[in-house]
């Protein structure tokens, strides 16, 4: 069976590798790339994926849970609380209005039964969390007002799925005897089944305590072990655990994960967790979109294409109009209002879940359901295209307008300097910068120090500074300067190699232990190399000479000259060194020392000056 697994993995990953870059290149976003890839490898084209697409899709839906966890991480409780009116008001109105209008369409125009129309209308009111959030992130629209509004609506829908699922059996023709066991608790907890609200409360309370107190404690211990994979394991364990718990008490897993994310948003491990979960989320969502593409039933579409496409058109138009109207009511400016409507006008993956449940309950005939499945999938496919059209042809008309203030800009204040390593060396730099109103974003791998710095109001990221994802979330692509002040020369070296490749615009300032480190850094093209052994040694010399009776101002001038000379000598000897790179390091160091002392002689010969001294004038 392992070969089957490999084969599947190969197909899905291969599809992503081939189609996503193409769609990105075309500017239509990764989602459509996955979807098209899915169609092509699906049963109706190449047939690499059979009908198991549906199962894969349900599994990969877990990507949505992870995505909501990550979104939660980026939103702290205070910000979430501020959004409550928008979530309930905007989200609630969207569901209500869309469902009412769609109900009228289904009941009056397509003459479904009252119950069937109601069930279908509720399903179609859902938008696609996966597509919309992925697109928002990818196109950097998530901090725009439209993006924020869209997020509120999606969150409400995620919450609404649960009660709708609960109500559906009541709409069934033959009252199905409640054979959907939502609660699958371990036996020793099964007594709680009798008190569902108590169970709910207990679960939410448990998530709260877990996220707020227990997990940070555990992570701190794990951080001390200094094994990255252990951290990843813990993060996955946590997210999957929450999802499982929430499912088993009958709350949406996505909502639970989101809640946990919000509660962890203030913890020092926030960015590390985000960086760990992100790749899994991305992969799972990719698989999910591909599976969606592969499940499109072309036989159904071919049977009556006019009907399918006109239903898609009507559904999306109705949703669009409702969203456009709500956008205006909730004070979006014109371009944001259009974006908001275009973003959410598709029918989402929750409709699959609801349709499956509807099918199970027999509310709507089977062949009609297949048609609606196809309708949902097509609307998901069209959605990225619509957004592409919006970006290309609609948005440019508004570019002359005043820039809409980005409401949540304060969420991630832009720092222009990143300081990696806040040890003895780095902390002095950081404090000096701060004393001059330059607040560097700090990356440090000591969780206790990170905790302390956070309390002191620094912006700190916990983790290993050589991780690209962490650097990315610390803002390396927008920053002007990165200071590498880690004690371990190898890490500094690694950073100097890594950063120019991935962030070519970042200016690097690197700490070097000594001149040999400096040479290696210069080999890598670093121009701002600062040797920790230079200035303090010279000024210790100043102190000594002063003790021996030299005057301080003269010493200061001489020290300045010496530092300048030594930096020049570094450059000069560096050029020499390159020619004999084959000599062993020890030998090279001795040789270098000798050359340096030779250089000193020349310097000393010139160093005598006659400033403020007329004793030797003739």
């Amino acid at each position, binding site marked *: 069976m392992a070969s089957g697994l490999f084969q599947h993995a190969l197909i899905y990953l291969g599809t992503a590798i081939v189609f996503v870059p193409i769609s990105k290149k075309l500017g239509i976003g990764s989602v459509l790339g996955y979807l098209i890839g899915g169609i092509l490898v699906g049963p109706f084209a190449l047939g690499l994926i059979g009908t198991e697409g549906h199962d894969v899709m349900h599994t990969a839906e877990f990507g949505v849970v992870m995505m909501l966890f990550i979104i939660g991480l980026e939103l702290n409780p205070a910000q979430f609380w501020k959004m409550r009116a928008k979530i309930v008001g905007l989200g609630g109105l969207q569901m209500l209005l869309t469902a009412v209008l769609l109900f009228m369409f289904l009941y009056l125009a397509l003459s479904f039964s009252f119950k069937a129309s109601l069930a279908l209308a509720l399903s179609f009111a859902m938008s696609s969390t996966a597509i919309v959030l992925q697109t928002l992130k990818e196109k950097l629209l998530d901090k725009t007002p439209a993006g924020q509004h869209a997020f509120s609506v999606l969150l409400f829908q995620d919450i609404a799925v649960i009660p709708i699922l609960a109500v559906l059996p009541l709409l069934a023709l033959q009252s199905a005897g409640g054979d959907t066991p939502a609660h699958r608790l371990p036996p020793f907890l099964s007594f709680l089944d009798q008190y569902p609200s108590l169970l709910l409360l207990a679960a939410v309370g448990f998530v709260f305590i877990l996220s707020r107190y227990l997990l940070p404690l555990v992570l701190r211990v794990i951080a001390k072990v200094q094994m990255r994979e252990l951290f990843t394991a813990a993060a996955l364990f946590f997210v999957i655990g929450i999802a499982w718990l929430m499912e088993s008490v009958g709350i949406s897993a996505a909502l639970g994960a989101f809640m946990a994310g919000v509660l962890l948003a203030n913890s020092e491990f926030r960015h590390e967790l985000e960086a760990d979960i992100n790749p899994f989320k991305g992969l799972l969502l990719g698989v999910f979109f591909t599976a969606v593409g592969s499940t499109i039933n072309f036989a159904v579409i071919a049977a009556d294409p006019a009907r399918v496409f006109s239903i898609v058109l009507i559904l999306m138009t109705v949703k669009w109009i409702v969203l456009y109207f709500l956008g205006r009511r909730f004070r979006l400016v014109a371009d944001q209002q259009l974006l908001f409507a275009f973003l959410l006008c598709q029918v989402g993956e929750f409709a699959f879940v609801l349709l499956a449940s509807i099918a199970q309950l027999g509310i709507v005939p089977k062949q009609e359901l297949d048609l609606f499945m196809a309708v949902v999938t097509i609307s998901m496919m069209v959605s990225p295209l619509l957004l592409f059209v919006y970006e290309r042809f609609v948005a440019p008309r508004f570019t002359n307008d005043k820039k809409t203030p980005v409401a949540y800009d304060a969420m991630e204040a832009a720092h222009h300097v990143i300081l990696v390593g806040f040890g003895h060396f780095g902390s002095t730099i950081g404090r000096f910068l701060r004393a001059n109103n330059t607040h560097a974003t700090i990356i440090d791998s000591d969780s206790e120090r990170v905790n302390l710095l956070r309390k002191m109001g620094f912006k700190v990221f916990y983790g290993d500074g050589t991780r690209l994802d962490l650097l990315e979330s610390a803002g390396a692509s927008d920053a002007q300067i990165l200071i590498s002040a880690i004690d371990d020369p190898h890490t500094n070296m690694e950073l100097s190699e890594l950063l120019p490749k991935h962030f070519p615009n970042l200016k690097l300032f690197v700490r070097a232990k000594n001149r040999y480190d400096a040479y290696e850094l210069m080999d890598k093209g670093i121009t701002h190399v600062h040797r920790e052994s230079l200035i303090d040694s010279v000024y210790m010399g100043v102190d000594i000479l002063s003790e021996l009776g030299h005057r301080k101002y003269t010493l200061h*001038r001489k020290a*300045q*000259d010496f530092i*300048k000379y030594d930096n020049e000598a570094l450059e000069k000897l560096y050029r020499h060194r390159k020619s004999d790179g084959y000599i062993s390091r020890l030998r090279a160091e001795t040789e270098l020392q000798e050359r340096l002392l030779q250089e000193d002689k020349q310097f000393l010969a010139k160093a005598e*000056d*006659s*400033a*403020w001294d*007329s004793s030797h*004038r*003739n």
Partner: protein
Amino acid sequence: MEKITRVLLLAFHPRLEASHVNRFLLNTLREHPHIEVKDMYELYPDFNIDVNKEQQDLLQADLVIVQHPFFWYAAPPLIKQWIDLVLEHGWAYGTNGDKLKGKQIMHLVSSGGGFEDYCQQGKNLYTYTELLRPFELTYKFCQMQQLPTYVVPLANKIAQIDLEQHAQQVKRILEQWIAGEVDAKLPAGVTYLNELN
């Protein structure tokens, strides 16, 4: 008569970022291809002047402009440091010290007060020219020819339009100088370059 072609502008302001007047003057003048501007406090934040480099630059120049604000009836300290270190015995003066001989030099000054304060009847009793006497003697000692000072008065509350006018006037005078149109011998009775157009 030797034609002046190269101007070296040495700007001394310990807090240039806070001086709109001095920055504006520098920005106006630095664009000219014959004017080399050096921001001295940026070059020598530790007062550790590179004597060799400074001397080389002086040798290249035909006219040296010393631009500075008027602080406590005098110039900021780095100018004095520069004079102490760069104008060396045996180079600028003394035995064989004739490297600056015949070069022209002038001060371009921004002042919080005005001409009516800096005169015998005014509250500061002495004119700008009188207060700049130590510099006058220094340049004379190095056999340089000093031109009258240009003063941007009332610099703390100057209107932008007046500042622009001053900058343009200085620029015009320097351009004429570079083109050799202004005779080194100034019209009699000019005490400040402000009087030229």
